[in-house]
């Protein structure tokens, strides 16, 4: 299991603060960073057409102790369902459960509504429900650790995905390469495509969310190395109106902005629109695999890239749980590949029939109920 926040004081090893990017986040862990960047180029094992079953650098663990006859009751403690990414992911997970219908007799889902405290109570509550396996998508890494440990102690096979926990006890931790990879890909693209030493605006959603923090810390490293001028790091709360106002004011203040980096794609479209409304060319920009951005990218011919944090990872925990209950070996950690959408492969991901906030990387086209379930 990787431990994103295990060594909080490691920031001394981070590169020196560059212009405008400020101090390195205490979330930055050099080893993890190096590791993730290496993974970007690693070749995955597993079926090529099923990235959600692929593993990067697998290290298999034995699960024979959890072997159990089916059909199973699988329980899922979810951090929240409060944004499109999680919605698409959860629908994918439900479809996967349906696809495995003969092996799963019951799927219990409890939504913590974004509250650490509630998720701890939820997990505790699930322990009394006779689950055969427990899947956890933690709301916050550090704070959910005790609850997950308690679940492990109860003898359940525990699968953690998306965000991790600070303990080795879960059978496996599933996630794509991660935040450093995402942040790095976007930042490298933006700094390479813009004029050297140009002005970059970094748009972030919220402070204090570990995944987003790692993305930014990797981007910071890239920007410092490329010696671009990061003129601002602003939080948008994921609010497009706020985003447009910020971008607008930055354009006015600096005349031009040469690149835009963001830690999540939610407001990418709004940022592009701000340039359009100001009558300026849209600079190199990164978004995510949300269809509204991909569509705009294609329609407007943007210079863009979309690193992803694929929603297909929501399929994997179900698969992993079933394998564990079969006593099969699984990789721990289970690192999924994290494809990047570029100009070259843009068309293959852009499905105009899906809703604008759908995520292209859902890996759901072969699942029951596609496409209606995701519309």
């Amino acid at each position: 299991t990787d431990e994103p926040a295990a060594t909080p004081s490691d920031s001394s090893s981070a590169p020196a603060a560059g212009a405008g990017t400020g101090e390195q986040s205490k979330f930055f862990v050099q080893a993890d960073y190096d590791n993730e960047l290496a993974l970007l180029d690693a070749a995955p094992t597993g079926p090529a057409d099923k990235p959600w079953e692929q593993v990067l650098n697998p290290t298999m663990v034995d699960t024979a102790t959890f072997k159990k006859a089916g059909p199973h009751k699988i329980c899922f403690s979810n951090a929240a369902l409060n944004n499109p990414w999680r919605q698409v992911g959860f629908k994918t997970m439900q479809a996967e459960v349906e696809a495995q219908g003969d092996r799963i007799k019951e799927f219990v889902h409890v939504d913590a509504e974004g509250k650490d405290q509630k998720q701890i109570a939820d997990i505790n509550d699930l322990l009394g429900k006779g689950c055969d396996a427990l899947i956890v998508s933690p709301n916050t890494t550090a704070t959910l650790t005790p609850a997950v440990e308690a679940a492990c102690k109860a003898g359940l096979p525990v699968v953690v995905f998306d965000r991790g926990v600070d303990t080795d006890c879960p059978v496996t931790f599933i996630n794509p390469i991660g935040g450093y990879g995402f942040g790095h890909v976007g930042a490298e693209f933006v700094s390479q495509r813009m004029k050297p030493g140009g002005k970059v605006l970094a748009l972030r959603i919220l402070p204090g969310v570990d995944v987003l923090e790692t993305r930014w810390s990797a981007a910071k490293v890239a920007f410092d190395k490329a010696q671009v001028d990061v003129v601002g790091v602003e939080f948008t709360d994921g609010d497009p109106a706020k985003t447009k106002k910020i971008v607008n004011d930055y354009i006015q203040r600096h005349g031009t902005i040469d690149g835009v980096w963001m830690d999540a794609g939610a407001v990418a479209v709004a940022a592009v629109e701000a340039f359009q409304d100001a009558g300026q060319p849209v600079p190199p920009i990164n978004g995510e695999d949300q269809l509204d951005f991909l569509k705009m990218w294609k329609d407007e011919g943007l210079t863009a890239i979309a690193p992803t944090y694929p929603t297909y990872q929501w399929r994997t925990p179900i698969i992993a749980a079933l394998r564990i209950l079969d006593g099969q070996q699984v990789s721990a950690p289970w690192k999924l590949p994290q494809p990047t959408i570029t100009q070259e492969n843009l068309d293959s991901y852009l499905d105009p029939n899906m809703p604008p906030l759908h995520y292209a990387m859902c890996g759901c086209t072969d699942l029951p109920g596609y496409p209606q379930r995701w519309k």
Partner: protein
Amino acid sequence: MQLVKRRPLPPQLARVRSGGLLPLLAILVVLLVLITVRQPDFLAPASLMSFLGRSAPLILLAAGQYFVIVSGEFDLSVGSLVTAQVVVAARLIDSDPSRTWPVVLVLLAGGLAVGLVNGLITTRLRVPSFITTLGMFLILVGAVYLWSNGAPKGGLSEEFRRFGRRAFEDVPLLGRMPYALVILLILATLAVLLMRSDFGRVLVAVGDNPRTAELSGVRVHRTRTIAFMLSGLAAAVAAILIGGYSGVSFQAGAGLEFGAITAVVLGGVALGGGRGSIVGAMLGALTLELLFTLMNFYGVSGALRPTVQGAIILFAVAVSTRRSTSR
């Protein structure tokens, strides 16, 4: 015995009325000066117009909130109403231009309806409006997520987005004149006129002392309900402008209720009702928007912004309250 003699009262003294707005105006001017020092071309017509245009939603929400607050109530549901309206609009229009106008009408009617429900629950069931609208806030957010399965669907037509995004081009002197600004000016004028009408004066009286108003023949319930409906209507217009400005998202209205209430208080309007002017409320909103812009121009670190904002709001409110409650 002749006691009935005419002795006209002394003429109106100009002192009381304008006093309330002075501190706010001072703050407004200071902010403007600070911005222009940093960004001299902020006052150029083009950028000023676009600033005013994008501020229109908050100003309208503040005006709507003013009606409710001055009548002695609260409306915490406006932010969620804006979100709901934007999401509903996107789904109903579904990128089909021909549905634009019908949907605009639906939104306006929806805003009025939510206001009506808020008003009826508050007045007929005597639930404090803080609770009514807090409940409505939860219901609207929950319902809209439920209805759209957690992710907004459909899309807004370009025709719809025009209201909040486009402008009259080539206006003499000003250059561009955002539609949003035109809509704001019209509605603000209507709102000011409304507050000068019999209804407006009665509304303030209701906020001050509903018992007296009732016993003077005022239909207190109806008057307050209308205030809620006006707030709902303002939210609907704001939703149209915000949806137009920045497109669909669940964040469209997040936190706007606090923004609107803060603006109204900045404008010297007393929470609890019966005091303050609508112009003050709208200027309060403008001040708030200027404050955000100021922070953009001065590059206040993103994370520190709330602190700066909180400090300035506390300072401004303290200054304006100080003036009005001398004892």
